[in-house]
């Protein structure tokens, strides 16, 4: 599902991200683990096309995304689901509207299905009673569940999650992780999850050590 070969990206003077080889099979759930600043989020951004590599190849679902134009990459991003540490819900919109916007911009689901699919997805994350609540009125756990619903509603092939439990208390983090893993398993979706928390990483079937990704070069 995801392949990185000889991927290189200069992050600053004398600082380089280098990933010689990485592979995640379809439906696989992989934790990208490492301490802060090790390059795991950069790896996630390269996989999702938010950053372009300065060398090497990134293949997602058989497509070399490094060769895609900006507009094609925008369209291709509809195949992903994103989950962020700080939720990144759009504050002027309700939970339902946030999930609908996930479909509206990805443009992979017919418009007539938007509302029913969003409602059903929010029910699956146990937020059927908060459809019309705005993010500011939700608890942090509820916000992350809305974000999970938004990420999964397009039935993406790949979910990229950047520290999804980083802003949650341990109890809430536990329930959110359980929900995320359960839904990804049910949907058969590939999950790349960035975390610095080894306990969280160990909950996933596979852990990829990212501690050696960023290197200092001698100029």
């Amino acid at each position, binding site marked *: 599902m995801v392949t990185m070969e000889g991927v290189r990206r200069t992050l600053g003077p004398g600082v380089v991200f280098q990933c010689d080889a990485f592979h995640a099979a379809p439906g696989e759930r992989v934790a990208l683990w490492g301490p802060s600043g090790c390059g795991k989020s950069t790896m996630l951004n390269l996989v999702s096309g938010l950053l372009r590599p300065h060398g090497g190849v990134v293949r997602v679902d058989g497509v070399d995304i490094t060769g895609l134009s900006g507009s094609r990459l925008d369209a291709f991003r509809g195949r992903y689901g994103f989950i962020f540490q700080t939720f*990144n819900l759009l504050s002027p919109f309700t939970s339902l509207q946030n999930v609908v916007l996930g479909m509206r*911009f990805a443009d992979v689901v017919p418009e007539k299905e938007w509302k029913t699919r969003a409602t059903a997805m929010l029910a699956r994350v146990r937020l059927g009673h908060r459809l019309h609540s705005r993010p500011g009125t939700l608890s942090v756990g509820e916000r992350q569940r809305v974000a999970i619903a938004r990420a999964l509603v397009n039935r993406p092939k790949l979910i990229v999650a950047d520290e999804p439990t980083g802003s949650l208390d341990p109890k809430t983090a536990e329930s959110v992780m359980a929900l995320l893993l359960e839904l990804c398993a049910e949907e058969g979706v590939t999950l790349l999850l960035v975390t610095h928390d080894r306990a969280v990483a160990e909950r996933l079937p596979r852990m990829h050590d990212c501690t050696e990704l960023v290197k200092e070069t001698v100029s």
Partner: protein
Amino acid sequence: MSLWHVAWNYLWNRKLTTAMTIISVALGVALISAVLTLREQTQKRFEEEGQAFDLVIGAKGNPLQLVLSTVYFLDAPTGNMSRADFEEIAKLEDVEAAFPLGMGDTFKGYRIVGTDRALMDFTWGDRRPYELEEGRYFEGVREAVIGAAVAQDTGLRVGSSFISTHGFVDMPGAHAHEDKPYTVVGVMRRSGTPNDRAIFCDMESVWDAHDHGGEEAEEHAHEHGEECDHDHEGVRADITAALVKLASPALRFEYKDRINKQYNAMAAVPVNEIQKLYEQLLGTAKAVLLAIGYLVVVISSMSILIGLYMSILQRRRDLAVMRALGATRGEIFGAVLIEAFWVTVLGIGVGWILGAVVCYGLGMYLVAKLGFHVSAVALGPDLVTAYSAVLLMGLVAGILPAWQAYRTDIARDLAEL
């Protein structure tokens, strides 16, 4: 969910800022609306009234003063002209109708106009500017028919009497013709014309009021002072002015030149004089007021630009999230431009309503002062052009913030904020 909906939600999310921006646009639009509407409406009404008669004739002097004094009852007459000349002009081959006017007195500031009884039957198009609401037209000396505004303001009714005052200005100490009271025999229907502010009687009543003999005449002349501008000797030999209807409007300038050359009188084409007034004097005033209005709109456009720009800076993360969710750069650009569109359109809408309120207020004033009814909500071509220009300015103001949003660097904005 359309981009229109997305843009609207972001505006709604910062209601106060949005409302202030809309109000600033609305103030400029209201000023532009009021200037254009009042200018268009008053010119239209002035020109409509000016079309009733092809020529006005009076003593030589300022043609605009002649028109304003005889058609709109707004200024002092230019003097008197010979009644014999009037009667000769009335018999010229293309003169369809000619009516003498005799002026010199007022009642509570409302002008008393002596004329022929036939003027009361005058119609043009489907308009009957002298139609009666109650009573009858004047038949004898010092019988008066009053306009609707006169009746409303003074409380005069059919059967009431009043004493006229000499001169065109209602001022304390002015000579009153106390021995020659008028009786109201009719009240005219409101016509939305200067006739609403006039009192009509026959010519004989005007002559009679000024026909003093011997010592009384001398005393009277002294009392008048500077306000007296007519000859008291042989008053029946003069009239103040005349209204003339020709067989065709195409003859206006031919007859104007002919009368100016052949008679000791001045002819003027009312609609022509009014157009000149608007072009020369009011045209400049309009240009200045419009410039102020557009300046306000330009400043408002700057507030749209600054408001949107600040908003874009504050929601760089939201824009980055939208891009991460699959929104194209074009969609982001469009959503911000739509916000500028909403603010401008709402500003135009509110401004149009504000402008209508201002026009309504000023329209009430114009009705009282000029007798003109002004439509407050007219949407003429000038206004449509002005609103289009304002909309264009609003959209132009939205381009820079939209471009800023277009250039969103997703990874940086998601990482930095």
